[in-house]
């Protein structure tokens, strides 16, 4: 039974093959004869000659012409010298397999030296690509349609409007259809013959924040600054420039000079050159050279030369001002059609509004992510400093320790996702241990002398930093984020945020929730708050203050370790990374209000948003933004010494 089935299938296959076998191609549909008509041009193509050939071939509407031109352009077509026929060439080991253009059958396998490969240069390829666009726009494969759209956006011109408009109707893919419609708008806005179509296309581009749309509108509204004696009649003037407000007098005079309407002004350097050329017997125009260190004497000497006729007359002091006043300066649209430029300007204005809105959104995202970084770095400190009153200068080194823990884990576990999942709790454990050890050995002896914890922990800080340098070296170590954290959430061309920053934001939120839960809802939190408010009373209630202090310090340090892993993911891991955060972290805690998790959140938000806000005014200078931010913090503390969220009543202590 199985055998019979198999037999039957084999027979059916053979029958099918016989039926499907292409017969001799019908003469009027065969491409080869049509190609032979242009054999010379096709065999040695040049950019100038190929265009008419390609257009003629396309007009003849052969079913295979699209594929032929594509493969021809890709240098996959060869010519056999004996009979001048064209073939597709396919690789067959050392030989070249010749494939018939019409039938698609392999004809022969020959050495590559027996046929001539037709080498199309890039100019020819461009011509062919452009000619193919209308064909490709309706190609059955999505990729080819997409490539055709790319080709249009690279080099748009008027001839593409018609085929594009026609292909929009036939497009079935929704996303490609919107892209085609947008591209059509872009083309119409620039090249449409029908003014109504062009105006409506321009209006439709308003509010579109994509770079292409803005580029088109900017091209339409491009201006040149010109100068003339009077405003030219009928010119499409964008605006008249006021000397003094819109441009300086010096810049205006420059324009006059470059428009050949005025002589270049004499600079002091030029004056010196001229004088140096006219030294006669140690004198210039009768003035001794020794006196020429005085600018007034130089002018005197020049005027003497001028009177003698050796040098051209000098411009009068107010000549430049008069020349500028006599002319009118204006921006002129390069496009003469006022209606079009006005429409484009209006569209551009509405785009600008949209952009401004998006920029604010982007700024908010930036500020949010910076705030969450500050929050993460400072939250551990908020516990040790804010709740316990210990100035832990080594807090930054705990951050560094966490980051190096992540780095070491990655050395052992190559999978970034798993290593991250291992590193987070491990970093907590390592820094928790370090924190507890430090509290037990050093800090508990200093609770009565809070300022001196600063010195002792500073000592620990520089020791740890140098230790890290000795172990890991001075160069930055990478802490690589897993791929799923590597990308960015790009909402449009303006608003975007990297995934890792979103993750840090989420991490900050988790910490906030976790910490609030621990402090407000657990036994440990209750005891921590009791010990902070009044250790003696807490002890008499059966709480062991030593144990609580130890755990609290460990908790704060452990959180610093986790923050270290998070910070290490987007910044590099160095022995100095902790020191970069320590001052800012202290400021965050102080500005927010000591002894309060919400305060730290407020402080981090204020500092983060403020820094991004200042940066927005002068994006190139982040140092200036930081400077002003610190100055603001100094002033802020003057007016609210207890921070944003100030504790009141008994909890505030002294």
């Amino acid at each position, binding site marked *: 039974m199985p055998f019979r089935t198999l037999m039957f299938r084999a027979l059916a296959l053979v029958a099918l093959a016989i039926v499907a076998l292409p017969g001799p191609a019908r003469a009027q549909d065969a491409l080869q004869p049509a190609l032979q008509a242009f054999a010379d041009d096709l065999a040695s193509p040049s950019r100038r000659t190929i265009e008419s050939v390609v257009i003629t071939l396309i007009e003849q509407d052969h079913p295979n012409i699209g594929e032929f031109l594509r493969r021809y352009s890709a240098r996959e077509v060869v010519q056999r010298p004996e009979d001048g026929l064209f073939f597709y060439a396919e690789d067959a080991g050392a030989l070249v397999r010749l494939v018939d253009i019409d039938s698609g059958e392999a004809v022969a396998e020959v050495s590559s030296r027996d046929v001539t490969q037709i080498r199309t240069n890039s100019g020819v390829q461009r011509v062919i690509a452009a000619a193919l666009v209308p064909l490709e726009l309706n190609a059955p494969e999505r990729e080819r349609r997409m490539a055709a759209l790319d080709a249009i956006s690279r080099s748009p011109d008027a001839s593409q409007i018609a085929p594009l408009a026609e292909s929009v109707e036939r497009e079935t893919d929704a996303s490609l259809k919107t892209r085609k419609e947008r591209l059509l708008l872009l083309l119409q806005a620039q090249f449409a013959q029908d003014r109504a179509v062009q105006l409506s296309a321009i209006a439709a581009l308003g509010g579109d924040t994509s770079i292409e749309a803005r580029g088109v509108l900017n091209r339409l509204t491009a201006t040149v600054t010109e100068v003339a004696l009077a405003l030219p009649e009928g010119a499409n003037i964008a605006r008249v420039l006021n000397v003094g407000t819109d441009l300086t007098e010096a810049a205006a005079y420059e324009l006059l000079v470059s428009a050949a309407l005025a002589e270049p002004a004499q600079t*002091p350097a030029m004056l*010196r050159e001229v*004088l*140096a050329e006219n*030294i006669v017997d140690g004198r*210039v125009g009768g003035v001794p*050279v*020794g006196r*020429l*260190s*005085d*600018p007034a004497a*130089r002018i005197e000497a020049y005027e003497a030369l001028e009177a003698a006729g050796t040098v051209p007359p000098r411009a009068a002091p107010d000549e430049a001002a008069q020349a500028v006043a006599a002319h009118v300066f204006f921006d002129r649209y390069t496009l003469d059609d006022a209606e079009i430029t006005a429409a484009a300007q209006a569209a551009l204005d509405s785009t600008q509004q949209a952009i401004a809105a998006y920029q604010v959104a982007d700024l908010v995202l930036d500020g949010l992510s910076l705030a969450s970084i500050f929050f993460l770095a400072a939250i551990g400190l908020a516990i040790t*400093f804010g709740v316990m*009153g210990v*100035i832990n*200068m080594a807090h930054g080194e705990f951050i560094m320790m966490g980051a190096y823990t992540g780095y070491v884990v990655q050395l052992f576990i190559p999978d970034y996702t798993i290593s991250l999942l291992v590193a987070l709790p491990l970093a907590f454990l390592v820094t928790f241990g370090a924190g507890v050890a430090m509290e037990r050995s*050093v800090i508990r*002896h*200093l609770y009565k*002398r*809070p*300022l*001196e914890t*600063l*010195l*002792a922990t*500073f*000592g*620990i*800080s*520089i*020791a*740890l*930093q*140098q*230790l890290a*340098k*000795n172990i890991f070296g001075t160069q930055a170590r990478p802490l690589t984020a897993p791929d799923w954290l590597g990308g960015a959430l790009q909402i449009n061309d303006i608003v975007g945020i990297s995934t890792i920053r979103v993750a840090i934001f989420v991490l900050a939120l988790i910490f906030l929730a976790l910490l609030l839960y621990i402090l407000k809802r657990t036994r440990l939190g209750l005891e921590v708050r009791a010990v902070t408010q009044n250790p003696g009373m807490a002890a008499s209630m059966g709480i062991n203050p030593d144990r609580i202090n130890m755990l609290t310090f460990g908790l704060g340090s452990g959180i610093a370790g986790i923050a270290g892993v998070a910070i290490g993911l987007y910044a590099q891991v160095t022995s100095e990374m902790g*020191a970069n955060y320590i*001052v800012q972290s*202290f*400021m965050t805690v*102080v500005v927010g209000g000591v002894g309060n998790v919400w305060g730290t959140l407020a402080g981090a938000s204020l500092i983060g948003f403020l820094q991004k806000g200042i940066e927005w005014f002068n994006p190139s*200078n982040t*140092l*200036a933004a*930081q*400077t002003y931010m*610190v*100055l603001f*913090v*100094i*002033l802020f*503390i*003057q*007016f609210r*010494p207890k921070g944003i969220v100030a504790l009141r009543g008994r909890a505030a202590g002294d």
Partner: protein
Amino acid sequence: MAKTTLAPKKGFLSENPSVLRFLGLLTVFTLIVTALAEGFGAGVISTSFLKVLGMTLCLCLIAVAMDVVWGYCGILSLGHFAFFGLGGYGIGMWLMYARTEGIVRTSLANAPIPATEGEVRDAIASQIFSVVGSTELPFIWGFAHSLTLQLLLIVLVPGLLALVFGWLAFRSRVTGVYLSILTQAMTLALSLYLFQNDTGLRGNNGLSGLQNIPGLLHLPQSTIALWFFWASALALGLGYLLFAWLVSGKFGSVVRAIRDNENRVRFLGYHVESYKLVVFTATAIVSGIAGALYYPQAGIINPAEIAPITSIYLAVWVAIGGRGRLYGAVIGAATVSLLSSWFTGGGAPNIDLGFYRIVWTDWWLVLLGLGFVAVTLFFPKGIGGLFDYLVRKP
């Protein structure tokens, strides 16, 4: 007070024998170093080491100032190195301007037409600021041509900054840890400001070539180093005398009372803020002078010198030396900075443990850090505290 003004000096010195002892030791030290120096005496002390000694004396001076503000007045300022740096920048501006002016004038001397003052200024500006891509002299360099004005600025700039900052901070009763963090923020803001290229002090390039003193270029460095060493010793001696006098009288008692309990002093009717402001400003001015003497010996100043960490080091020196006694600050600063240069300069012999070789340039900071911890924990009175065992008070 009114009675003692007739002969305050005699009474002051006889009441404080340690001041006389210190000044005597300083004089002896200066004389010995002079006798051994390359530029004057036997040549046992090299010029570079002489500079290190001179710089150490400047550091001792700022440590004394720090001791007054922290050890006596209880303000843990983490900003005094900012004043020190401002003093350094103040003198550095004149040194750099005047030296560049000399170079420019020499190179322009051969020009066919003598240069105007404006041209000289432009040439100086483009020489100094080409490194940050500018050719214009910033307005803060407006006094740089005059040594007198610039010396005045060395006193005025740190003084005014301290006055304004202190007035703001003390007025709103920021105390303790918060004040420390506030002063640290001030230092951070200043160093960030100086790190910018467009603020007129050459960004992180700083000012360099400060060891060449204009007008004294014909003298060998060994002589100049000796002069600066003497000047530093004189400044330390005068500063020590000034502060010892300041903290010994009634003023000093009030200041120490503020350290111990600010509120009680306020309740007694003293205007606490004024006292703190005087102490803060005076120490800032002395810090600026110390910086102005330090950086011509160091030869270069850049914003990293003002970074907050240096001011913490200063506090640590004073703590190691012993707070609340001026000679303690001197001992602390001298010990730690000389040890630092000995260890990091490769002077200390490396120790071979067999399985590991301790290279001190790598391990010195670890040792220093642990040393801080040990001193804080076990010797809260610092090295100076040891003297208490020697000199038992009746």
